[in-house]
């Protein structure tokens, strides 16, 4: 069942907006609600009536004020949280548990403290199904390449406790990318990075996602961020959420041409979209900041 108001095939042509051509839904959230029981008080509603399709090969970014349930949406997609209402599906199969088809980058990184940088990046390939069919040499080559990509070359033998917050975040990013999952679920993956590294990794994100490949060969990404310019730069669509309860407010198309790069950030359209999304969440963001 499609969510009401957005039947399949309604999406505009990709020729104008750079998003996949009426791609089928890869991920489908249908009327999803998640409540947490609170002792001696009414349940906390993390998200409510959340319906959204994420298309095959789409880069979807979720923005919204703190506490709007962004992370809950991600956890439900990952199969780490079970919705209390509604359904969530991947390729029309219900999601009931985590799986290697959906890679997650956690907000607190979830690095294995007993593994070095290399051990962490290699972990999924070595012990999970992601490394099936890779011989040792191919695996090591991929790990080496991924570590180089996130700028951690030289730190391979360090342990997480020896790294700065930004470096840990890069290890987590590299671990996710090394597994090359079909769907990437990322919870503020670039938040702890300095401005320059952040811009470099935004470009890399798009490359890994597959912006140079035809839409059918791209991965599907659900990406949470606080930074609106980051959302506009990366996304095919930006889902704006509202808090208390966490609901989907509006989905904004980002018809900026692809491939995107430094020139994209200078486009007047880029500025206009950033302004538009900011105006959508401004009131709530102010209220959240004051509260």
């Amino acid at each position, binding site marked *: 069942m499609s969510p009401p108001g957005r039947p399949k095939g309604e999406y505009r042509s990709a020729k104008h907006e750079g998003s996949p051509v009426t791609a089928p839904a890869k991920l489908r959230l249908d009327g999803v609600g998640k409540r947490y029981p609170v002792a001696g008080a009414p349940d906390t509603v993390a998200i409510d009536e959340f319906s959204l399709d994420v298309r095959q090969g789409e880069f979807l970014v979720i923005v919204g004020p703190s506490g709007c349930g962004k992370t809950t949406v991600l956890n439900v997609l*990952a*199969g*780490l949280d079970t919705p209390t209402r509604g359904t969530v599906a991947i390729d029309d199969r219900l999601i009931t*548990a*985590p*799986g*290697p088809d*959906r*890679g*997650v980058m*956690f907000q*607190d990184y*979830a690095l*294995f*403290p*007993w593994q070095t940088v290399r051990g962490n990046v290699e*972990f*999924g390939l070595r*012990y*999970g*199904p*992601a490394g099936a069919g890779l011989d040792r040499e191919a695996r090591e080559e991929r790990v080496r390449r991924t570590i180089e990509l996130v700028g951690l070359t030289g730190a391979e033998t360090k*342990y*997480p*406790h020896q790294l700065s917050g930004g470096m840990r975040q890069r290890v987590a990013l590299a671990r996710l990318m090394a*597994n090359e999952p079909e769907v990437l679920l990322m919870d503020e993956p670039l938040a702890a990075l300095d401005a320059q590294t952040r811009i470099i990794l935004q470009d890399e994100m798009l490359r890994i996602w597959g912006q140079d490949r035809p839409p059918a060969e791209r991965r599907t990404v659900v990406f949470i961020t606080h930074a609106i310019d980051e959302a506009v730069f990366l996304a095919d669509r930006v889902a704006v959420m509202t808090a208390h309860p966490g609901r989907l407010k509006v989905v904004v198309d980002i018809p900026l041409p692809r491939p995107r790069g430094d020139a994209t950030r200078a486009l007047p359209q880029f500025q206009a979209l950033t302004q538009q999304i900011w105006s959508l969440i401004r009131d709530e963001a102010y209220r959240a900041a004051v509260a």
Partner: protein
Amino acid sequence: MTTVLDARAERWWSTAGVGLLLPVALLIAWQALGASVGTPRTPLPVNIVKAAAVMIASGDLPAALLQSLGRVFGGFLLAAILAIPLGLLMGYSRAAERNLDPLVETFRPIAAIAILPLAILWLGTGTSAAVAIVAYAAFFPLIVNAVAGAKHVNPTLLRAAATMGLDRMTTIRTVVIPAALPSIGVGLRIAMGVGWTAIVAAELAVGAKAGGGGSGGIGQMMFVFYAYSIELNRIIVCMLAVGLVALLLDRLLRAMMKKLMPWAVQ
């Protein structure tokens, strides 16, 4: 630069000096007081050092310590092989914990020395009884810490492993066990301590049963000095040796863990 180093050396000497002040003063007071008002039986620091020299030179003390150490290692290993896997299982599986925890907690307060009568009756007064006592004593700190280690694995790490598609056995091998290792290490250190305590008690008691001859070990050596030759100085040498060996073992274990678990910052 030199002044900084000088100052640092001076500070070291002053702290070390302050630390040594009290023990040295006590030793002097003990020697003086014992020599002036004590009976011939009163052990004196000077005599203890002399007795230690004799016992080391004759090879008796090292031989006894070595024998006891062998038993401690035997019992320690036996306990570790049983307790660590069992503890990990209990920490990981609620069902296993519910079934085994009452059993463990019932036996845990029973002192190792209390099972000595059974050990002697079943296993005799030799090494196997001593090893069994050590294993019994070491078992409980090992299992309790293994349970705690496996239970308090950071749940996000388990979630991360699940999202990477790891199956249950691989998750245990690559996440639960490594996460539990620091706690298991604490268990090993405590177990080494109680194992060493238990061996001295067991050998003392076995010595009482077997008489002067028999199975040896540092505990039995103490019993002989107590019951047969009545040599207080030598008993105190044995006591000090037991303490020093325990200290050494603990330092050794700690160094090993630091080497094996460089991520576990102490």
